[in-house]
């Protein structure tokens, strides 16, 4: 019926030509989001760039100092240590978490009756607040009374040990977030058209061949998405590290965002901490651009 009416009116309907009024309606609709978006995301992101060229304190008062902060950053052993530790954390989490997510997705998809239940078991940690996760693992990994040291008959102080602290934080992160990866992989695996498997079976393909030529190519786009999403998330790592180790022992788990936080809120260096912020911003923007190319902001709409 709607279609018929549209045909009778033909051409540009009247309600579409009342230009000014329609612009005002549109303006009214976007103004709320646009205001908070520019005030609280775009403006701070530009201001951080400007602050990085000043010696501002945390109240924002300071003068232009050119590239002094950047020169200092390049020579700051604390910065390089934090960057190195962040990369180490990425290495310990991103690939293992993706692999585990993929394997568990394959295993969980095989299940019939218990599938929902088992998926929930893996996904449940993901909906816990980070401080609940960290408090829980501080308890599980307690040196004297923790159940893990009891079961393994060890007495390691996991989060205070220079060697084990970072792997322990990485492990907690994997426990917390692998459910997300499993979910994405399960969706990808279920999207592989059944006919492809049937055709392969008719052609007498072995299960290794099926995996190599059907499953894997269909799942690779999601794999790259999962890898890059994690890369971005783990480069910004702060919460778990701050709550589990506070950056210690001996700065062995000091990461970039924690260094920024210390420099800003404990040493009151608004300018220098903004410089670290710019590094964070640039690295994540570049990684996101790669992600946009792969998983496609462009393809989002199709």
């Amino acid at each position, binding site marked *: 019926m709607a279609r018929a009416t549209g045909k009778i009116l033909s051409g540009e309907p009247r309600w579409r030509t009342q230009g000014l009024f329609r612009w005002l309606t549109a303006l009214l609709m*976007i103004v709320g989001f646009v205001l908070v978006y520019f005030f609280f995301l775009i403006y701070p*992101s530009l201001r951080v760039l400007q602050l990085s060229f000043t010696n501002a304190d945390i109240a924002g008062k300071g003068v232009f100092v050119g590239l002094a902060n950047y020169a200092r950053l390049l020579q700051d052993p604390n910065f390089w240590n934090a960057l190195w530790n962040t990369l180490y954390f990425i290495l310990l989490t991103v690939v293992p978490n993706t692999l585990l997510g993929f394997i568990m997705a394959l295993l969980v998809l095989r299940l019939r009756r218990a599938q929902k239940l088992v998926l929930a078991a893996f996904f449940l*940690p993901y909906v816990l607040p980070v401080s609940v996760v960290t408090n829980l693992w501080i308890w599980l990994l307690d040196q004297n009374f923790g159940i893990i040291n009891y079961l393994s008959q060890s007495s390691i102080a996991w989060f205070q040990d220079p060697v084990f602290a970072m792997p322990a934080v990485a492990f907690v992160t994997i426990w917390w977030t692998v459910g997300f990866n499993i979910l994405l992989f399960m969706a990808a695996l279920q999207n592989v058209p059944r006919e492809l498997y049937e055709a392969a079976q008719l052609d007498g393909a072995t299960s290794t061949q099926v995996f190599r030529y059907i499953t894997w190519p269909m799942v690779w786009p999601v794999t790259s998405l999962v890898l890059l999403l994690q890369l971005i998330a783990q480069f910004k790592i702060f919460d778990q590290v701050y709550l589990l180790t506070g950056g210690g022992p001996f700065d062995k788990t000091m990461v970039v965002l924690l260094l920024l936080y210390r420099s800003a809120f404990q040493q009151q260096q608004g300018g220098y901490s903004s410089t670290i912020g710019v590094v964070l911003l640039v690295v994540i923007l570049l990684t996101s651009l790669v992600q946009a190319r792969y998983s*496609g902001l462009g393809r989002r709409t199709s």
Partner: protein
Amino acid sequence: MNKSLFFRLLAASATLLTLLFGLVWVFPVYWMLVTSLKSDTDTTLLPPKLLPSPIDFSAYTYILANSPILRWYANSVITSLVITALVLVLALLCAYALSQLEFPGKPWLYWIILAGFMIPFQASIVPLFMLMNKLGLVNSYAGIVLPQLASPIAVVIYKQFFDQVPRDLGDAARIDGATEFRVLFSVYLPMNWNITWALAIVTFIAAWNNFFWPFIVTNSIPMMTIPVGITQVQSAYGIAYAKTMATAVMAAFPTVVAYLLFQRRVTEGIMATAGLK
């Protein structure tokens, strides 16, 4: 014959292994609950008791009586609900305009909103904190809420869904004289209740769980949200794990319940926000 038996055994052991692994994975959550129901002396018993016997609620009553946990709860409930409602309303309106209306600068605006996906707000907490300080919003609900509204994800998702609504449906209402607001709320929104629910639950869980920003913008104990507040309890009690775990159980309760009740919606919401729909 032998071969098929072998494969069936293999399949059965894979199933068993998966179930076992699932149990191991969820065990910490069980341990959190069990520990919270023990007395302080029972928590440090070796070997540990796998069941709380007798069940002891003293950790809960102690926390409720001696910590500001109810205040933190109230802070979290209020800010998370306000964030969820505002994120959805702002996104709904903006996405509708982007999808259905023409206005100058529209492609630009959409491009900037898409670019916002890539901007980590963590990089600019320093100017953001300065801004909040200048506005006098440190240690306030508005201070906690406002930056969390600047999230482009809901806008982009709504726009995608609105683009798929057949134009004729909206046009029919417009010819009947409906305003654009009317068209949005009586045609477009009702057609997209599922994604609205999914977005609402995912936004609520994210707001409830957000640690970093409330941690930066609150430093007075009564203004903390629950994920920030419970880190104070832990340092105050030292080794008193029954109490720490009781606060953890209380802090996690709403998101866990939301997930268990609305599993399918949560999954949908996660898929949509990851760009996989």
